[in-house]
């Protein structure tokens, strides 16, 4: 019995490293008198936390296997029964805990699989939507070209509305595809020359959007960042294009791009003096299909900032905005700052 005690107390003490728990073991195995046994049960109940249960299991196994050596007393039978009960309880608990661990382990994997499934669904739906859309666009255009003379003004107006909406739907599908693709493609992270990216994106905008060249761009030296060049270029283009779009009605449209370094992240800010938005709706800004302006005033699909948000989050950064109506908006994105020697080393000469 003493051997058994030693044998049991050691793993118990090692397991928990606690004198209180060791005492429980001592009582449990050394003395089966009802009072002490009740004391053990009380202690077990008090300590019925996760660790205690694991421990009790060890004690129980040992006690059960040595059961034949106990005097056949009622208390011992009760102790045995209680032990079996505890053992069952613990076994179930342990099984559940293992299951939980397994599930937690595979959770990320399963979430990724489901996300990929959803994205591939979005992708295939978007593609399939293009075919009927091409038909609507094509046939209305043919109607317009070949039969417009037989329509009155109202008829021609209706036709124009159909065609305009076809264009909107096409833009929506394109944006949805971009969004679904962002979740699937791999990131090619490199040190970035942020000033070069902003300058390049602005020059491109000037070529594609007439209003862009009216905007004064004030580009400050930006902190270096790490990211996928084509994706971050998309972010920068989107932010500048928004700034251009929302300053269209200003007499002196002005966009300022500046940056700071905060907590290992490079924060890039794009500030405009445009129409701004009501901060009450700021939480909607980065949602898909969320628009804070009337489409009649400002065109757009409501996907642009959702794309920005998704790209930035994939880079372990975040995007947020501040605005005052009729004064302007500042959109911020944070990106990882190059920290390792490797990041520094790979940095191209121009940054």
């Amino acid at each position, binding site marked *: 019995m003493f051997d058994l005690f030693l044998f049991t107390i050691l793993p118990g003490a090692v397991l928990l490293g606690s004198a209180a728990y060791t005492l429980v073991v001592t009582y449990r195995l050394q003395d089966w008198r009802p009072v002490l046994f009740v004391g053990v049960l009380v202690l077990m109940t008090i300590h019925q936390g996760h660790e205690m249960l694991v421990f009790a299991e060890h004690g129980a196994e040992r006690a059960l296997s040595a059961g034949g050596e106990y005097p056949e007393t009622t208390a011992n039978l009760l102790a045995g029964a209680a032990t079996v009960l505890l053992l069952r309880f613990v076994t179930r608990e342990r099984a559940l805990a293992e299951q939980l661990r397994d599930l937690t382990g595979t959770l990320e994997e399963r979430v990724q699989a489901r996300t990929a499934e959803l994205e591939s669904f979005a992708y295939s739906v978007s593609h399939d939507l*293009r075919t009927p859309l091409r038909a609507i666009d094509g046939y209305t255009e043919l109607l317009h070209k070949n039969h417009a003379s037989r329509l009155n003004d109202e008829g021609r107006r209706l036709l124009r509305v159909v065609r305009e909406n076809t264009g909107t739907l096409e833009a929506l599908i394109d944006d949805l595809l971009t969004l679904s693709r962002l979740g699937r493609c791999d990131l090619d992270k490199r040190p970035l020359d942020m000033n070069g990216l902003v300058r390049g994106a602005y020059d491109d905008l000037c070529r594609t959007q007439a209003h862009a060249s009216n905007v004064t761009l004030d580009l400050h030296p930006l902190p270096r960042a790490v990211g996928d060049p084509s994706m971050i270029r998309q972010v920068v283009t989107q932010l500048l294009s928004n700034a251009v779009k929302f300053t269209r009605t200003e007499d002196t449209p002005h966009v300022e791009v500046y940056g700071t370094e905060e907590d290992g992240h490079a924060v890039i800010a794009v500030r405009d003096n445009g129409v701004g938005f009501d901060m009450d709706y700021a939480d909607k800004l980065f949602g898909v299909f969320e628009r804070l302006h009337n489409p009649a005033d400002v065109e757009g699909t409501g996907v642009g900032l959702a794309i920005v948000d998704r790209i930035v989050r994939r880079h372990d950064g975040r995007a947020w905005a501040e605005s005052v109506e009729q004064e302007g908006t500042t959109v911020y994105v944070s990106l990882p700052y190059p920290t390792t020697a490797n990041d520094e080393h790979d940095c191209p000469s121009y940054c």
Partner: protein
Amino acid sequence: MTSTTVPRTVDLLLVEDQASDAELALRALRTLDLDERTHRVDDGAEALDFLFGRGAYADRSPADAPGLVLLDLKLPKLSGHEVLRTLKADDRTAHIPVVVLSSSDEQSDVTRCYALGANSYVVKPVDFDTFTETVQRIGTYWLQTNERVGQCPP
């Protein structure tokens, strides 16, 4: 099968299951007088029957190769990828230029088609004018500018 009568000389085989896309493409080709020499099939299996002279096209021979196959990817029965693979794996048909005309701008589709031997990959524009212009440009280049492999003497 969409057209029951096969034109005497087929310059262009249009493999397209969507009637509207096919009609718009044929309209675009009409400007180049190519519509009369175009044959349209609406699934992948029929495309192979046509090219290999099998089934409903038993009177044709692989030697009567069209100057161009305009191939959609999403097709009933056999997909465009499968048509492309079979076509390019057979010596009798490997020389026929295949231009993939698909709604998909997915890189995996583009890469796969080139790996299977596609001669060109064009994304179908949604906008009608761009679509027309694109189809015409394909027709002009592959059927009027590009030199095709001469037919074997009898």
